[in-house]
């Protein structure tokens, strides 16, 4: 059984690839700042709106996919959000929140609405996100992904949202708090409870992983290779 690759860079900054898309739109040179882009979009400028979409769509999609667990639904939700953005961009008030915070708050709320409407049997029984993504190569990783999927489904939606925003989307604690409209302390509490649950649910798998990678086991494996 192949093990999960160890996190070698514990002190390193893990920048989610999704965040590298930031500021790409500004690089086009048409609008100097995002604020400029928003003002133009509020005045009905389609080019400004297009750039806003190009800048934020990847994050909206990623958040949707993490929350809804399905790429088709994530696409639908992202289309809804972006359509709503065009229709309601004039309602955005910069004095109340950052644009991204406002947009991700809308996205998070749309996801929660969809989750609440969704009944468990809407997903096919053989639905396997690992297979859908076609990026998980090994049986062990598949098993890990499946266990994680099961564990994540047991989390209350706000704990899950906090985890997605913080871990996957790479938002800072204060940003998560703003998006979720609660205090940073409340987010810390949500994250701690979520991770404790995951730790507990993944405990047996972790034990298996540990046993398979004990110094004795590793020596045996090396002996087999020789």
């Amino acid at each position, binding site marked *: 059984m192949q093990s*999960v690759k*160890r996190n070698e860079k*514990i*002190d390193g*900054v*893990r920048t989610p690839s*999704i965040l590298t898309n930031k500021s790409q739109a500004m690089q086009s040179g048409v609008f100097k700042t995002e*604020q400029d882009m928003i*003002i133009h979009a*509020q005045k009905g400028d*389609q080019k400004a*709106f*297009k750039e806003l*979409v*190009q800048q934020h*769509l990847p994050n909206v*999609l990623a958040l949707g996919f*993490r929350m809804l*667990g399905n*790429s088709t639904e994530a*696409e639908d939700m*992202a*289309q809804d959000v*972006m*359509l709503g953005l*065009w*229709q*309601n*961009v*004039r*309602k*955005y*008030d*910069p004095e109340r929140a950052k644009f991204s915070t406002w947009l991700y708050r809308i996205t998070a709320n749309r996801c929660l609405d969809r989750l609440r409407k969704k009944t468990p049997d809407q997903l096919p029984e053989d639905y396997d*996100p*690992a297979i*859908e*993504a076609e*990026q*998980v190569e090994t049986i062990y*990783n598949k098993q*890990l*992904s499946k*266990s*994680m*999927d099961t564990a994540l489904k047991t989390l209350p939606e706000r704990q899950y949202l906090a*985890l997605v925003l*913080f*871990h*996957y989307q790479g938002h800072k604690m204060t940003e998560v708090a703003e998006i979720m409209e609660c205090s940073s302390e409340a987010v810390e509490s949500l*994250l*701690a409870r979520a*991770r*404790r649950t*995951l*730790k507990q649910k*993944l405990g047996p798998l*972790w034990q298996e*992983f*540990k046993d398979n990678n004990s110094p004795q086991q590793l020596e045996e494996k090396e002996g087999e290779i020789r």
Partner: protein
Amino acid sequence: MTNNLDHLTMDEKKLEELLDIYGANLSKMPEPLVKEVKDFLRYCSDDLDGSGQNEQRLSAISISMKEKIAELMEKAEFVDQALDHHNPLPNWDMKTLEEKIFAKAFASKQESTADVISFDDRKTSIKKNKRPSIVGKPSGNNEFFTMKSTGLIAASLLAGLLIGSLGGLDHVFYEEGSTLIASNSLMDDVLYLGTEYSLETAEFLKN
């Protein structure tokens, strides 16, 4: 046994709490905490690397504690890795999706929110909405203010006159119980601002 960890605010329990919140990726922790955690981990590993250089410190930290801390870190890393391996993002056809969004959006209309003013527009809109004659004038001296206050004073005066006249009317009515006097009194009140004149007039009329 001397506890050499006293100088650190970090302990096993605190470490566990932090790992539960932030995971094993220390870069996600606030800077002061990262330093504390790193110091704590370094301290523990230095003590227990088997070099035996510092026996006093070795005695302060038990093997079981080292194991516990290592386990805490491993579990936190494991959860991080499981999260990373879970549901890798699909490769979306962004261009097609964007085209769909633009087609839908531009076929619809933006909501009319004439009252919504944002950013720098706020100042310029206020200026635009002001009549040219008052832009740049101090609010206390401008034409708009003068007109408004004049109207207000006139309205108050009229209301005062009416109330005063009614007061006079009541008084006269009470005094005389006569419709005729009352009527005259009302006229006086209106003319003489509802002051003593009303009584005087009433007295006059009575006599």
